[in-house]
């Protein structure tokens, strides 16, 4: 159902296969550009972006209700609570036409608006500045409540890291979201199994995620987080914004997905690929299509 004629909502596709191909193209764009941009910066969060590549690609392929105007008041909001994923989002914003391609080339350089963590003041399409983990769900609660008061049928999507669920403020926000009945709020947990220091369940357990959110009054669904069709189906099936229960989507992913030597790797959470290795890695991505 089209929620607003102004928006390019609802996977306007000729067929499912071309739509899914579009998601795959964007996921590949996220990984390839992340390697290129981090190469220019000298360090960055490769694997945290790679686990979320299909999630972001699916969101920006017709799930988020957006328009050509990045400041359109009724647009869906995406809060990057795991702000270190931003380097993978900038290429999608450029892909949408919100950012000039040339700007990407100067990523992280002195005075550039594009940093490791996103700045809403200077980057069109970034709905909130983030970087300190644990804040994003509270931002989403405020946005969702405000959208209701404005009478907008806007949805607010919040991308959370899994280790981030250790932060107490997440649960402050979770209890408020269900208490206020914010069915227009969707949290997506990038369940890539890892924090910076190792496996989430070794560092500080976040399981059982489903039961925790359910106990806080949320509706919880799980999805295979690298499957474009499953993501698209799950995202488009969230209840209407006027509904009274927030949704948590637990996306099962692999940290570093798409690059064999980075998968499940603790050490590649933050790193740098020198040109020779970057070229080899891009080649691997090419071969995988």
């Amino acid at each position, binding site marked *: 159902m089209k929620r607003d004629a102004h928006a390019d909502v609802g996977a306007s596709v000729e067929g499912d296969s071309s739509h899914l191909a579009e998601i795959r193209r964007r996921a590949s764009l996220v990984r390839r550009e992340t390697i290129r941009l981090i190469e220019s910066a000298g360090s960055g969060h490769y694997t945290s972006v790679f686990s979320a590549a299909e999630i972001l690609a699916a969101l920006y392929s017709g799930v988020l209700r957006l328009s050509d105007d990045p400041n359109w008041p009724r647009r869906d909001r995406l809060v990057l609570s795991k702000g270190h994923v931003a380097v993978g989002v900038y290429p999608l914003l450029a892909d949408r036409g919100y950012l000039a391609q040339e700007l990407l080339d100067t990523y992280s350089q002195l005075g550039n608006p594009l940093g490791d963590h996103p700045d809403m003041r200077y980057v069109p399409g970034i709905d909130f*500045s983030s970087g300190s983990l644990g*804040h994003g769900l509270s931002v989403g609660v*405020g946005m969702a409540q405000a959208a209701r*008061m404005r009478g907008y049928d806007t949805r607010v999507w919040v991308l959370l890291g899994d280790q981030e669920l250790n932060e107490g403020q997440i649960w402050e*926000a979770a209890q*408020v979201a269900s208490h206020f009945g914010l069915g227009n709020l969707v949290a997506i947990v990038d369940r890539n199994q890892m924090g910076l220091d190792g496996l989430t369940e070794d560092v500080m357990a976040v399981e059982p995620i489903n039961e925790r959110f359910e106990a806080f009054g949320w509706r919880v669904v799980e999805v295979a987080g690298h499957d474009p069709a499953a993501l698209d189906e799950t995202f488009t099936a969230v209840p209407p914004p006027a509904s009274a229960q927030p949704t948590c989507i637990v996306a099962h992913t692999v940290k570093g997905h798409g690059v064999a030597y980075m998968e499940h790797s603790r050490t590649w959470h933050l790193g740098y690929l020198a040109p020779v290795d970057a070229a080899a890695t891009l080649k691997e991505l090419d071969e995988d299509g």
Partner: protein
Amino acid sequence: MASTHFHAPIPADPASWDMAAYERLAQSAVAGEVLAEMADDDERLVVLTADLKYSNRTADFERRHPDRFFNVGIAEQHMVTMAAGMATFGYIPYVATFASFISLLCAEQLRTDLAYPGLPVRMLAHHAGISLGFYGTSHHATEDLGLLRAMAGMTVICPCDATSTVQALRTTVDYDGPIYFRLGRGREPSVYEGRPERLRIGELAELRAGADLTIVANGIGVAAALKAAERLEREGVGAAVLDAHTVRPFDAEGLCNAAARSGRLLVVEEHNVIGGVASACADALMDGGVDGVRMARLGIPVDEHALIGPPSQLYAHYGLTAEGVCEAARGLLEGRPRAAPAAKRS
């Protein structure tokens, strides 16, 4: 069937008070009522609190605008960040809780979620300083000005009474970026009622002229300084009194001019002597290149968590009274050592 209402016993002693009586006592805790009036004509105003709506009288707002009032429970950090999210939709949220919690517990939310994106969220940081008396250090806010002054893009306003609180709230609705209103406990003596001065945000307010000494104060220190200036005048000392209601941005030029005129500057503040108004004055003199000003300061000593005690006794102990200000002024004029008093725990 058991009643779900709580029935308090009728107090026999007139000194007894309950929460409703407290609301009547707290003459200066006007923010909730004023915001309710302001919100009649401005649909952007919303109010959030964290299970303190009676203490801060935001219940006055709730009664008039229940759809724009949000009690988030005891979740202060969430409250600040939620307000940030609402502000991105064009709302102007006023978030109210004890100053100690909103400044110290929520310092990162204030910096990263409000000041950094430049969002127009207003903090009603009430019961600031040591006004919660024997509730103790957990409930004292004696470092908040130091924290907030260091945040780029933050405005910090410290009205000294109900009249100036009303003026401050009414004149800043459309200010860019966040504002931290540092408020008392609602029992501050009136200073501005009946006076011709209007609060001009960002400017020191000269409430009294005097050539021998400049006293800079804010909050409860203003009334104490004015009373002290009257006494000093009887002793033949002319003391100017400036209300530093806007701590950030600080009126550096006004301070430098006033300090250069008298050459003696006494700062009175309900805050640790580090980081607050005295520091702002010293910064201004340094940046302004003003030499030869002799300074003294009254406040909570450097290495002290304030003593336990009723507020009035604490104020007397730390010299934040007319007597204390007079004594410090005489010391400054006579060139006595200027160390702030150390704690005496009996």
